[in-house]
């Protein structure tokens, strides 16, 4: 068997797993670069005094921003984590590595199809592509190919853990990090299966082989793809939190049972929260809405509360063990704030928990949703979850894994230490601006909220101008943080000093 022993962690790292992690991670970072650049253009266009892009390019690049940042960056990174947790953490190999490469190739080809057809101006439908708004067939085909690739990779996770058990890599219980990715993979199977179920008929409709797709059915199934895939992110992000705490501080989960219960609650109950996209839709009864978003979803929220307790608690225990025992907060003061893998994890917990979690629970109530649906406040909410939460956690993950997997030191360590703060603060400022503007009714996905060429004149409360400018400034800070991340991560991967 072709493997090495990692001098930093003692893990047995097989070449097959290492290569898959490397390629998926680097691809993820490249798509973040593209998506982040589009994000810059979005912020510059929604900033009233700048209003940079023309309408056509605004909607086109908005499609690309959503697709590249949300789907490609995050899913490629998660597939990297699939191999990291199902092989490297278990000190074992990847079963049938070619399956991983097929999955990777499918994802890449699908991603290229979508990017090319949108850039060519043939699919200005935004990433939700609500039927009967129609894109060129290549767009749907690209999504199908991408989804099949990702589904294959999540399937590969299960094959790996079966083989690992046979090889004796673990006896009965997966390590918590791997368990978190198991939760992510389970949700991934649900999500991507729904994606295939709806996108295949839509593809045939786009090439005129099927006459009619019911828009209500599309929305129902689409959101099982579109929203549930965010739950893959939540699981992978939380797993990343636990792993970072373990690698950086040597932290133990304070209670395996508590943390695992939280993941099990995610697996069982989080997906139905997809309903909150449909709260002000026709069609679904109050009971369908209340049960799906109300009763059971709160069990998933409970799970997040558990993690929000368990991880900081484990950090506290670990730091106290290191001797920082004075008073209540000595441990917090002496945490490794200069280590970007740690600071990013901590910022991600705060950003996701406070900004994302609270806005999510509020906007997800049926009645409140009437006054927030499709406003800019929603964009603010999910930049809290998916950017200040997941993206920041994965940035920390990148800093953590570069020495272990790429065997390189982080270049520009000062800049790297500063980057998570800059990025998280920028995103926080941006999303607070978005939420404030949205509370006055400013819509998301809208090129001209002054309605200068619309038939009836309407203008929002003048204070929205200030909020949108705050968003713009925050967006610029975040983009600067993003640029530093890309320079440091790709720079370290290519030019960092070799560690062994």
């Amino acid at each position, binding site marked *: 068997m072709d493997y090495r022993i990692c001098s930093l962690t003692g893990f047995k790292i097989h070449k097959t797993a290492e290569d898959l992690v490397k390629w998926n991670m680097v691809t993820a970072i490249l798509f973040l670069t593209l998506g982040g650049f589009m994000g810059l253009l979005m912020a510059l266009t929604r900033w009233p005094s700048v209003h940079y892009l023309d309408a*056509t390019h605004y909607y086109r690049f908005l499609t690309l921003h959503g697709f590249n940042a949300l789907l490609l960056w995050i899913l490629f990174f998660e597939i990297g984590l699939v191999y990291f947790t199902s092989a490297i*953490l278990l000190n074992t190999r990847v079963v049938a590595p070619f399956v991983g490469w097929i999955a990777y190739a499918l994802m890449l080809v699908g991603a290229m199809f979508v990017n090319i057809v949108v850039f060519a101006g043939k699919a*200005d439908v935004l990433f939700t592509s*609500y039927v009967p*708004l129609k894109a060129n067939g290549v767009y749907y085909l690209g999504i199908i190919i991408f989804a099949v690739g990702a589904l294959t990779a999540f399937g590969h996770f299960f094959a790996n853990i079966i083989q690992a058990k046979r090889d004796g890599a*673990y006896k*009965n*219980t*997966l*390590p*918590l*990090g791997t368990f978190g990715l198991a939760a992510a993979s389970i949700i991934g199977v649900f999500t991507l299966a729904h994606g295939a179920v709806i996108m295949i008929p839509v593809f045939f409709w786009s090439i005129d082989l099927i006459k009619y797709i019911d*828009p*209500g059915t599309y929305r129902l199934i689409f959101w099982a793809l579109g929203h549930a895939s965010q739950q893959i992110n939540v699981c992978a992000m939380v*797993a990343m939190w*636990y*792993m970072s705490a*373990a690698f950086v501080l040597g*932290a*133990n989960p*304070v*209670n*395996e*049972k*508590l943390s695992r219960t939280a993941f099990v609650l995610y697996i069982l109950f989080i997906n139905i929260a997809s309903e909150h996209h449909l709260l*002000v*839709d*026709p*069609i679904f*009864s*109050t009971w369908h809405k*209340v049960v799906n*978003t*109300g009763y059971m979803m*709160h069990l998933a929220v*409970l799970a997040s*509360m*558990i993690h929000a*307790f368990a991880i900081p608690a484990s950090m506290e225990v670990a730091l106290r063990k290191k001797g920082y025992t004075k008073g209540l907060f000595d441990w917090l003061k002496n945490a490794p704030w200069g280590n970007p893998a740690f600071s990013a994890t901590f910022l991600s917990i705060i950003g996701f928990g406070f900004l994302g979690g609270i806005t999510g*629970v509020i906007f997800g109530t*049926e*009645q409140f*949703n*009437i*006054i927030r*649906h*499709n*406003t800019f406040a929603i964009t603010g909410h999910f930049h809290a979850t998916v950017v200040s939460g997941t993206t920041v956690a994965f940035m920390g993950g990148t800093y953590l894994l570069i020495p272990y997997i790429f065997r390189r030191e982080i270049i520009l360590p000062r800049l790297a230490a500063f980057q998570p703060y800059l990025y998280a603060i920028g995103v926080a400022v941006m999303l607070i601006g978005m939420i404030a503007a949205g509370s006055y*009714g400013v*819509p*998301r*996905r809208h*090129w001209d*909220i002054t*309605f200068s060429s*619309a*038939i*009836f004149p*309407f203008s*929002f409360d003048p204070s929205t101008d200030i909020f949108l400018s705050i968003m713009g400034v925050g967006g610029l800070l975040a983009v600067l943080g993003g640029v530093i991340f890309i320079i440091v991560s790709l720079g370290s991967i290519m030019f960092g000093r070799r560690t062994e």
Partner: protein
Amino acid sequence: MAIKEPERIWWKPYTRDERLWVAMALLWMMVSFVFMPVYHFIGAQNPPNETYRVGDKEKFRALVDGMVNKYKVGEEKGFPIVKPEPGSDVFVQASMWQWYPILELQQGKTYRIHLSSMDITHGFSIQPINMNFTVLPGYDYVVTLTPTTAGDYYIICNEYCGLGHHLMVGKMIVKQGGN
């Protein structure tokens, strides 16, 4: 450790801190989870729940035109202003990129507003009060609405509906009762 297999039996009782935290979280969950159904019964604003299937879009268009012919009281910028009777069924049609017609409603009276789209998905967003509903083609969504404050309201579209999405603005006038 989160990166190693735990000991053989890890199913252990919770400590006091953990119990306390879970209890607090559960309590908070209970409050917010009872809130939604309770509010559904006592609250004044709920997402409406009445929907019909519109087989042929022309059927809905005919209802809109019938209402316009019967209740038209004026015109603004080429759009008819319609003043339907309180309590009646009112039909509003969305298409790329307009809301048709302009409604004139009376303060304090209740109307059943039917929303449907002639082409793709639109978002019915009443400003500046900021109330939002999805309008789908092929479905009729009935929003029962009682305007409480007189004034001019605008209906913007907040679901992306093609390159003229930001041009889609309609109007609704609420007049003081009696006149």
